[in-house]
Structures are given as structure tokens and as C-alpha cells.
């Protein structure tokens, strides 16, 4: 067994271990947990790159926990899709941690810092776990770890964040229940929980009502967690009142990992044959996505609070990813769109939430109408915001343009022309609500009155620990935009396509 094949379990194991060690270390020194977490996640990033390299050169990693063979033991499977997602998740967690250094001091009481970082690390462990597991029930465990910590991390801000956190607890638990019910039903039919095993057994029982019910329940469960419209109602409040670090992490990776469960289910457990078996199911998914895209954008236009606007924008952007998923049975480009947009939305929305947090922290402004003159006062945060917003709109050569291009091509390839129009229209709607903010930041002249709700940090410039992650992500928006246009990611894409058994390459 190759050395690298032990790395996946090392990541989750060490994450869990680290989280509890950090709690103890926090009693010795309040700063220690942050540095421990940062160091360990940087280490994870390096080994996740090894994993990605191994997956692309040698092939998928299958790790049997405790040496128990599947389907009895728990199996960890890492193929191109998870390895890619793992790298994204770990990188975003690291950037989020760096950002939190300057932000947490302002938004969270100091005595809570130790628990805050512990919870962040625990949430990260949950996300890593979901990403690399190959077992349906094990996935539920990690899902609950990632969700429970998220509830707590939102509530940690106190005050107005408590009610949204409570809503999220209720909705998230309902989602988790749906998922575990689905798993139970399908277990009752197939007698296995291992994904690969189940994939082999399922084709015989496609017409079993319990299997169909299980699929529906698992999908709905995940859709609640990934706030697919109209199951997004818990999300805008959560993103608005959560600490900025957490909003940023949740919008960029937490929801992507939740969505990843859906990807696994569709491609690796039920497979595309199952989708094709029920005529119109793929179109149903596409139209749900299309409605999500438009509704999210329209609601975003109505918002005045920047973070709430970004929250609705996320609802719309998750629609893009779901649309890609719905189109994949008809065209490989659909999956390419999914893969690309998972990354592009992670860096773009992460950057936007970070700069929204920076505006609130530095100038005390949350309402878009009070943003006059920010471009002069906070040039770096404004520039980062602008670039990320352009990426969301899909202006070339930013990352958002590439995903839009893939999805349009997928719709054309699948001969589903209405979605081309919806994608283009959504780009224009994004323009409307993002441009309003850009206008306010740079071009609308301020009336000269000082903002009364000015933050206490007045006069100090933004700490480097907050500026750097924003600028890195903004730069990535452009760099990835160019890289997606080149043929550099082609090997990765083809690996993902073949690992998910699309049967085609591009």
C-alpha cells in the first residue's frame, strides 16, 4: 500500500484530535488554538495536494478503516472529484482562519475565542470527513458534525444571531432527518451502506418504491442543507447575522460540501442510469435550478443589507451548480460546469463576504446606501469586492465567465435552449445588484456627513491578516478565470468525468 493512501484518514483523524487538543491548549494561552489550527491545516493542504497528485497519476484511493473489508467495514474513497474538492475546502478554511485573526477580535468576545477556533476546526473536520468518505452512514456522521458546529458558530455572535441559528438548527435537523430516513430505506432494500457496493446492487431494484422514496428523501434532505430554492428560507438570516468569518466559510465551502453529497448520490450511488430511468427527472432538476437562479437574483435585488444581498446571491449561484448537475445526463459539459462553479463560487463568494465583513468592521456600514466613499477609505477591500463581483456577474476574464461559458455550452449541447436564456438573464440580474454596490462604493459622491455608526476601529487601517486573504481570493478570481479557459484543467476534468463514470471525456 502506497504511503499516500494513508493520507485521507490522517486528515480527518488529526482534525478531530486537534480540535480537542486546541480546547485544552486554549486554557494555557488564548492565542495558541489559532496557530495550532493554522499550522495543522497548512499541513493538510500539503498532503491534500499529494493526494490529488496521487489520484491523478495512480488512480482513486480506497482505504479500509481498521482493515475491515467493505461492505462490512467503513471505506474511505478518494477519487479525482473528492481530491479536488478537498484541496478547495482546505485552502478556503486556511484563508478563513487567517481572515478571522483580525475579524474575530472585533465580532466575538475574547473569552469565546478558544471555543470559536475549536468549533471551526471541528466543522472543518466534518467537512473533510464528508469529502472523503465512501459510506452513506459515515457520511451522515460527518454531516452532523459539520452542521452542529455550524449552528454553534452562528450563535456564537450572540444577540440577533440567536434566532437565525435556532431556525437553522430546526431546518438543518429536518434536513438531516430526511437524509438518514433515506439511508435507512435504501439500507432496508439493499442491505449495504457502502456506496460502491450499493451502486452495483441498485440497478436491480430501480422500480422498488422504497428505493425511489429513499432517493427523493435524501435529495430533499441535502437540498435543505444546500439551500436550494425554495428550501433556502433559513439561510439569508444566518448569513446576515453570523460572524463574517463564518458567513464566508459557509458560503464558500460548507454549502459546497453539502452539495457534494448530492453529486455523490447522483453519480456514484444512484448513477445517471437511475436519473435516465425516470423520464423527465433531469429536466425537473434543471427547472428547479432555473427557478432558483432567477428567484435568488430577484430577491437579491430587493435587499439593502449587503450580507443579506450576498446570501440571496448565493441561493442563485447554488442554482447554477444544480443546473449543471441536471444537465449532466445530457451533456458532459454540465458536470464541467458543476466542477468549475464549485471552485469559482467558493473563491468569489468567499471574497465578497470577507470584504462585506471588512466594511462592517472598519466603517460600521452594512446598508448599501451608506457605502459612499468606501473606495477611497478602504481601497484594497473595495478592489477585492469589485473583482469578485465582476466574477459573479461573469465578466471575462474572471472565473465566473468560465462557469457561465461551460453551462451555456452544456445547455446548447443538451438542446435545452431556455436555460441559455436564463443563464444570460441571470448574468444581467447579477449586474443589477452588484453594480449598485460598486456604484455606491466608487462613484456616488458622499454628502459629507460623517457616518454616526462609525466603528471603534476608526483611524486604524485594516489589518494585513484581513486584507491578504481578500486580495488572494480576488487575484484567484482572475487567475482561475484564465486557467479555466486554457486546456490546463483538462486532465483533471477528464479524470473526474471518468471517475464519476460519465463514460465520455471532452
Amino acid at each position: 500500500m502506497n504511503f499516500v493512501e494513508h493520507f485521507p484518514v490522517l486528515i480527518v483523524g488529526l482534525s478531530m484530535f486537534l480540535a480537542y487538543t486546541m480546547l485544552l491548549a486554549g486554557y494555557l494561552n488564548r492565542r495558541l488554538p489559532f496557530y495550532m489550527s493554522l499550522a495543522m491545516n497548512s499541513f493538510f493542504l500539503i498532503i491534500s495536494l499529494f493526494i490529488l497528485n496521487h489520484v491523478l497519476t495512480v488512480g482513486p484511493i480506497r482505504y479500509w478503516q481498521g482493515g475491515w473489508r467493505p461492505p462490512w467495514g467503513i471505506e474511505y474513497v478518494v477519487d479525482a472529484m473528492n481530491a479536488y474538492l478537498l484541496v478547495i475546502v482546505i485552502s478556503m478554511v486556511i484563508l478563513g482562519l487567517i481572515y478571522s485573526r483580525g475579524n474575530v477580535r472585533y465580532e466575538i468576545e475574547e473569552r469565546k475565542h478558544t471555543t470559536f477556533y475549536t468549533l471551526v476546526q471541528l466543522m472543518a473536520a466534518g467537512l473533510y470527513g464528508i469529502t472523503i468518505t465512501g459510506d452513506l452512514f459515515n457520511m451522515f456522521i460527518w454531516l452532523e458534525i459539520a452542521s452542529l458546529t455550524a449552528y454553534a458558530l452562528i450563535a456564537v455572535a450572540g444577540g440577533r444571531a440567536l434566532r437565525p441559528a435556532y431556525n437553522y438548527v430546526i431546518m438543518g435537523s429536518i434536513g438531516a432527518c430526511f437524509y438518514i430516513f433515506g439511508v435507512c430505506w435504501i439500507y432496508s432494500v439493499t442491505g449495504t451502506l457502502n456506496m460502491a457496493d450499493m451502486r452495483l446492487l441498485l440497478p436491480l431494484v430501480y422500480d422498488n418504491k422504497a428505493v425511489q422514496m429513499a432517493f427523493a428523501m435524501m435529495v430533499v434532505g441535502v437540498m435543505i442543507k444546500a439551500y436550494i430554492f425554495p428550501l433556502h428560507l433559513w439561510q439569508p438570516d444566518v448569513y446576515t447575522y453570523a460572524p463574517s468569518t463564518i458567513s464566508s466559510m459557509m458560503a464558500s465551502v460548507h454549502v459546497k460540501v453539502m452539495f457534494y453529497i448530492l453529486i455523490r448520490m447522483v453519480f456514484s450511488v444512484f448513477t445517471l442510469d437511475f436519473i435516465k430511468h425516470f423520464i423527465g427527472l433531469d429536466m425537473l432538476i434543471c427547472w428547479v435550478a432555473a427557478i432558483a437562479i432567477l428567484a435568488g437574483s430577484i430577491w437579491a435585488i430587493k435587499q439593502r443589507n449587503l450580507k443579506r444581498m450576498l446570501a440571496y446571491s448565493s441561493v442563485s449561484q447554488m442554482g447554477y451548480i444544480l443546473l449543471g448537475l441536471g444537465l449532466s445526463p445530457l451533456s458532459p459539459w454540465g458536470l464541467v460546469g458543476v466542477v468549475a462553479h464549485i471552485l469559482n463560487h467558493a473563491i468569489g463568494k468567499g471574497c465578497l463576504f470577507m470584504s462585506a465583513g471588512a466594511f462592517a468592521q472598519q466603517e460600521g456600514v452594512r446598508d448599501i446606501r451608506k457605502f459612499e466613499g468606501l473606495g477611497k477609505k478602504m481601497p484594497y477591500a473595495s478592489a477585492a469586492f469589485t473583482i469578485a463581483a465582476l466574477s459573479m456577474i461573469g465578466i471575462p476574464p474572471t472565473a465566473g465567465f468560465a462557469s457561465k461559458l461551460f453551462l451555456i455550452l452544456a445547455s446548447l449541447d443538451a438542446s435545452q435552449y431556455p436555460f441559455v436564456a436564463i443563464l444570460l438573464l441571470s448574468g444581467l440580474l447579477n449586474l443589477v445588484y452588484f453594480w449598485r454596490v460598486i456604484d455606491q462604493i466608487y462613484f456616488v459622491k458622499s454628502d459629507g456627513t460623517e457616518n454616526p455608526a462609525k466603528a471603534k476601529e476608526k483611524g486604524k487601517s485594516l489589518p494585513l491578516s484581513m486584507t491578504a486573504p481578500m486580495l488572494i481570493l480576488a487575484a484567484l478570481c482572475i487567475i482561475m478565470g484564465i486557467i479555466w479557459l486554457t486546456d490546463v484543467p483538462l486532465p483533471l476534468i477528464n479524470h473526474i468525468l471518468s471517475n464519476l463514470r460519465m463514460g465520455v471525456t471532452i
Partner: protein
Amino acid sequence: MESMTPLLAILCPAIAAALILPSRKHPNIREGWTIAASVAMFLLVLSMAPVVAKGETIKCILFQSMFKDIYIGFKVDAFGEIFAITASSLWVLVSIYSIGYMRALNEHAQTRYFFAFCFAIMGAVGVALSANLVTMFIFFEIITISTYPLVIHEQTPEALRAGHKYLAYLMPAGAFLLFGIMTTYYLSGTTDFTPGGIKSLASAPQLILIVLFFTFLLGFMKAAWMPFHSWLPTAMIAPSPVSALLHAVAVVKAGVFGIVRIVGYVIGMDLMQQLGLWLILAGIASFTMIVASFFAISQDNLKRRLAYSTISQLSYIILGAALLTKDSMLGAMLHIPFHGYMKITLFLCAGAILVATGKTRISEMAGIGKRMPVTMLAFSIAAIGMAGIPPVCGFISKLYLCLGAWAVGSPYGMIFLAVILISSLLDIVYFFPIILTAFFKKPTEESGEEKIKEAPLLVVVPLTITAIFSLVFFIYPNTFYISDLARMAISNLFGGV
């Protein structure tokens, strides 16, 4: 021929933009970068002209894209080179003018102005040199976004409204364009500009081709064809150098350039003829030419009148392309640089009048010709050229357009010939009153006209140069290889002249 020159030319303004931001505290250094970049870019673009005029194409593939048979890169052909030379040569002059203009009026946010200007020019030259539709689209969107800060430069509520209107037209246009491009790729498997049209497109269903054509037409709303023109007069709220270079040359010409590319290099002349699309395009162009001229007559604001004149003149180019004959195509291609030089002179004069007197209305300009003889002389030369009267270069391009219309033959040809002649007559109707007012009308008593002098040297010199060039192009059309390039482009399109 493979060469890095196109890439270097495109990088010049980008590098300048990157240098402008850190030197914002030192205006002289900051403007130095602009001038240096503009000269460097012009020389790089010009250095490609002799090779291209001989019929070679200069290729520069940046990278292969993930899509099969699409690469991102530049391919300089004769037609693209004409537009690139026009835009880059005028940028040199307008940079100098900008310095004089912005400093004389003591404008705010000059760093932002020069920064955005660099990207706008990068977009225009990028459009000119692009090898395929996808590359072109990238630069097209760069133009749209980077000109927005220039349009709303004043930052008044009115300017912001104008800016929003600008985006409200041009961003949906971008969406249409993207749709057209992806459909083209889906239908034919390529988006490369091919002289005479992409061959495999011909096998597509007719209805889809017609829809595709209209999608492209909507996509090139930057060409300001009617009824999708009203963003252009509104955008005249921008500072004069911006109106001059961007809304007479870079932005609108990029739109017209795109239409010619679609007619000649994507859909192709044969299909245009076969599907009867040429007639629709020519009809739209004729309508715009005549109606925009009437609009121009009714304007009192000088820049708005010039804007409507631009709308009308752009449609000459569209008409030339639509008529699909060698001469008309040649006229269209020549009209791009010629109209560029003449119209920019007019806009620069309007800016010079604003700097010297603060006046924007034509009715207030009585007797201004005596106070500002150089400016108004340049204005008159350009105005004469606009109407197609020799000895200014506008005569040449309009002559070819008329010949082209004649060559079409059928009654349609005669109608379009009449349209060109009537529109030229209307040009005289709206330009000559300005000249008459400026030179021969007595100024009103109390306005203290004695104090008015010519604008600063940095403002007057560039507009004099462009006016002189408008004359030089008439005497020697091959300046900057323009006529060689145009002939070569025609022989590429039609196969041997």
C-alpha cells in the same frame, strides 16, 4: 507567420495601467506612462502593417482552450490592422489632448480617468487583433466595463443615470453576443474569422442562421444602429477626450468592426446574399443614416449633435458591408479610419471650445471663429470632410460607397445610392450652420467675448494634427498603409482584385 508583436501591443496599455496607479501622487510621471505606452503601442501596431499589407497574417496563439478547436489568441489580418492602426494612432494624440484638457479644467479623479482609458484602448485594439469570436468577446466586455468610469466621470446623479443607461444597453448586448458566439461554435465547431465566412455554417438550418444573424446584430449594439442608439448621445456627458476617442472611435467602431467581421468573416457574403440578410442590414443602416441626420439637425448641444452625426456615419460603414460589393466593402473599411480622424477632430474642437469658453451650445458660439481661428478652421475641415466634399478624406470613402451601391445595380442599389447622397446632403445641413455661426455671426454685446483666447497648446496641437491628417489621407490615402491594407482585405474577402 508567428510573432509575439500583437501580444506586446496589447500589453502596453495594461502595463501602463499598472504603473499609473502607484504614481498617482506625481501627475507628470503618471501621464508619462500613458504617453509612453501609447507611442509604444502605436509603433508596435504599425510595425505589423507592412507584413500584413503583403497578405500575410500574423498569428499569436496564447493558449489552447478547453473547448475543442478554440484557442485564445490574436491573428492580425489586413482588416483588423486598419482598425488597430486607427485606434492606436489616435490614442497618442488624445493622450496629449487629455493632459491639456483635464488640467485646464482642473478635473477630479484624473488617475482613475487615465487608468480606465488604458483598459478601454486595450479592449479596442484587442478586438481589432482577435483571431476568433471568443477572444473578441473578452475584449468587448473589457471595453464595456472600463468605459463606465469614464462615462460617469462627473459623478453627478445625471452622469450616473447616463452610466446606468450605458450599461443597460451594452451589457444585454454582451449577453446576446455571447449567445451568438456559443451558437456559432455549437453549429460550426469553430469561431475563427475566416475570410468569406465559416464554411460549415452553411449547412445549418436557415431559420437558425437568420436568428443567429439578428443575435449578432443585437450583440453589436455598440455600433449604435437605430433604434438601439440612444445610449450614445446620453454618454456624451463624459469629458470631451472620452467622447472623442471612445464614442467616435474605440467603442462604436468596435461595434461596427464586429458587424463587418460577422458579414465578411463569420456568416459570409454568400449566405448573406442567399438568405436576403444583406437587404435587412442595408435597410437598417439606411434608416439610421437618414433619421440620425434629422435628429442631429435638431440638437443645440454641440456634442450631442456630433453624437447623432456619429450614429449616422457609423451606418455608412454598416451599409458598405451590407451591400456586399468590392467597392462598397472597400469604402466601409476606409471609412473606419477616415471617419475616425475627422470625427475625433470635431470632438476635440468641441472640447477645446469648452476649455476656452465654457460653452457647449451651438447658439452661444456666435463669432467664436474670430477668437479661436485654429480650432474653428480644424473644425471646418473635418465638417467638410464629413459631408464628403474634397479635398478631405471623407470624399474617398464615400465615393467608394457610392460606386459600390451603383455596382449592386438593381433598383435596390439605386435606392441605397440615393440614401447615401441624401444623407451627405443632410450632413451639410447640420454642419454648416455651426461654421456660419462661428465665423460670420456677430456675438452679443455683454458677454465679454474679448477675453476668449485659443485653448492651451496641449489641446490645440492634437486637433490640428488630426485635421491635417484628414487632408493628408485625401492626398495620400496610403498613409500608415491604410489603402494597401484595405485593398488586401478586399482581396482576402473576394479573392483577388
